[in-house]
């Protein structure tokens, strides 16, 4: 039996960093923290994972970028972000006023970009984690490189070489048949923790126009609809590794948080909930204060 009372308030050690509690906020659902800080005390979080950052600025996809589906949110934002220089200049300084551990989410187009971003950040700023977004659609041949275990292992290995003491979290794609192939690959590459799950690939049509609703046609599904999938993957990965697991996927309340702990997660990230219910978000954060 998992001791939930203890788990809910336990600090989480990943690599050389001890995060104060197990309630974190997920990448892509907090932007870079400023807007959320108007309504939430960021200091009470165990960690905040910033919006996926690329080497160069990205303007993102045209709208519509999102649509609600049953108990889910389908999105294709397209990694709109200011690029690593914009992150360093305009986003990270704001977060210095808070004591919350800041984890960057890094989205490279290829291996070298992950390395370049980490190197650039390491020169300029102090952060408490690099979460590698390893869902990497290769536009040219239509493949998602992140589904290839060899590629995952190789990226993690290269990033670890330049990350110094900062923990490297591998956020692997759930859009595969065997999630443990990827978690093992990340572990072999030297990852300090496994983050899962990212969004599931989905699609929705407008039945009147018979056109896809998202301008990008295909998007990533988050929210309670994907929680059982996330729980299953956390459970499966836990059977094969002793690395810390950062669980996420449709958490809306304490029951859902506990379910992730029982499945094998050491801490959790809240995502879609941030868009929906700040009261509930605060309640989960309060529960995590020891």
């Amino acid at each position, binding site marked *: 039996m998992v001791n939930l009372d203890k788990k809910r308030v336990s600090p989480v050690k990943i690599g050389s960093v001890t995060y104060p509690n197990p309630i974190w906020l997920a990448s*892509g*659902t*907090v*932007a870079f923290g400023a*807007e*959320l800080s*108007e*309504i939430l005390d960021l200091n009470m979080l165990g960690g905040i994972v910033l*919006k996926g950052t690329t080497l160069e600025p990205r*303007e*993102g996809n*045209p*709208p*519509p*970028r*999102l*649509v*609600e589906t049953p*108990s*889910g*949110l389908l*999105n294709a*934002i397209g990694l*709109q972000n200011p690029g690593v220089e914009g992150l360093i200049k305009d986003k990270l300084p704001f977060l210095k006023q808070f004591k919350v551990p800041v984890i960057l989410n890094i989205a490279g187009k290829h291996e070298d970009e992950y390395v370049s971003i980490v190197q650039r950040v390491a020169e300029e700023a102090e952060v408490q984690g690099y979460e590698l977004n390893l869902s990497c659609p290769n536009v040219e041949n239509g493949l998602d490189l992140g589904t290839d275990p060899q590629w995952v292992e190789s990226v993690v290995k290269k990033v670890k070489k330049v990350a110094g003491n900062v923990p490297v979290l591998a956020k692997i794609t759930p859009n595969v048949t065997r999630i443990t192939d990827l978690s093992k690959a990340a572990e072999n590459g030297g990852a300090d923790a496994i983050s899962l799950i990212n969004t599931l690939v989905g699609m929705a049509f407008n039945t009147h126009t018979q056109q896809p609703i998202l301008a990008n046609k295909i998007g990533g599904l988050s*929210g*309670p609809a994907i929680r059982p999938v996330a729980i299953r993957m956390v459970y499966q990965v836990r059977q094969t590794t002793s690395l810390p697991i950062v669980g996420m996927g449709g958490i*809306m309340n304490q029951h859902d948080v506990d379910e992730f702990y029982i499945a094998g997660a050491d801490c959790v990230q809240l995502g*879609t909930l*941030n*868009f*929906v*219910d*700040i*009261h509930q978000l605060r309640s989960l954060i309060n529960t995590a204060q020891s």
Partner: protein
Amino acid sequence: MFTQEIVTVTENKPVAEGYFKLSFNAPELAKNYDPIQFVNVKVGSGTEFLLRKPFSIYDHTDTDISILFKIYGKGTERLSQYKTGDSLDILGPLGTGVVPPKDNVPTALIVGGVGIGSVKALALKMPKQFDLFYGVRNQGEVVEKQEWSELANTVFMCSDDGSCGEKGVVSTLFQKQASAYKKIYVCGPHAMLKAVYDVCPETIESFFITEEYMACGFGICMGCVIKTTSGYKRICKEGPVFKGSEIIW
């Protein structure tokens, strides 16, 4: 500064065919919002509807805020069933509001259908030097006709079927008299906004109240963007009002 509040519905009444005006008790909000700001409303319970739904603040009293909505889908249908005394979970005020013009330049409000729901708060705070161009599908869609005729200098109506005012679309109605105005505020479906922009002389300062599928309502999800001359901007945060010259149509 915005907050999440559980408020009590004080009235929810039909005001036109398929249109409802829902009022709720929120004294702080009633004092502290700017025209064109909106509230993001949680409809139903649990994950019946996962995301909040954004509605412009239509009007207020000392203690209450009201929103105006048209039944489009399941969410608005559910909202129409709320009764006096029911609780409602709202987030607001959101978006960048409009400072009502103090100058008396000739101004027009141009709205299509439920777009009327976004401009009343502005109309109430403007000097009475504006005309209203109001396009609807048919007579049954007209909201608060008497009240608007008292608020505006002149109300120019048009309808798709000719049952109310001129037969035709509001952009054409406005075009005939566009030269009389220096400033316009426009709200309605995107195609209507574009049609007005296309007929609007460059000498007019134009403001468009935009909409898009929205999730958070306060700028963290990057979902509800519009393309502008300085890149994608968030309708919920930098918007929902944009200058016509700023939007990439």
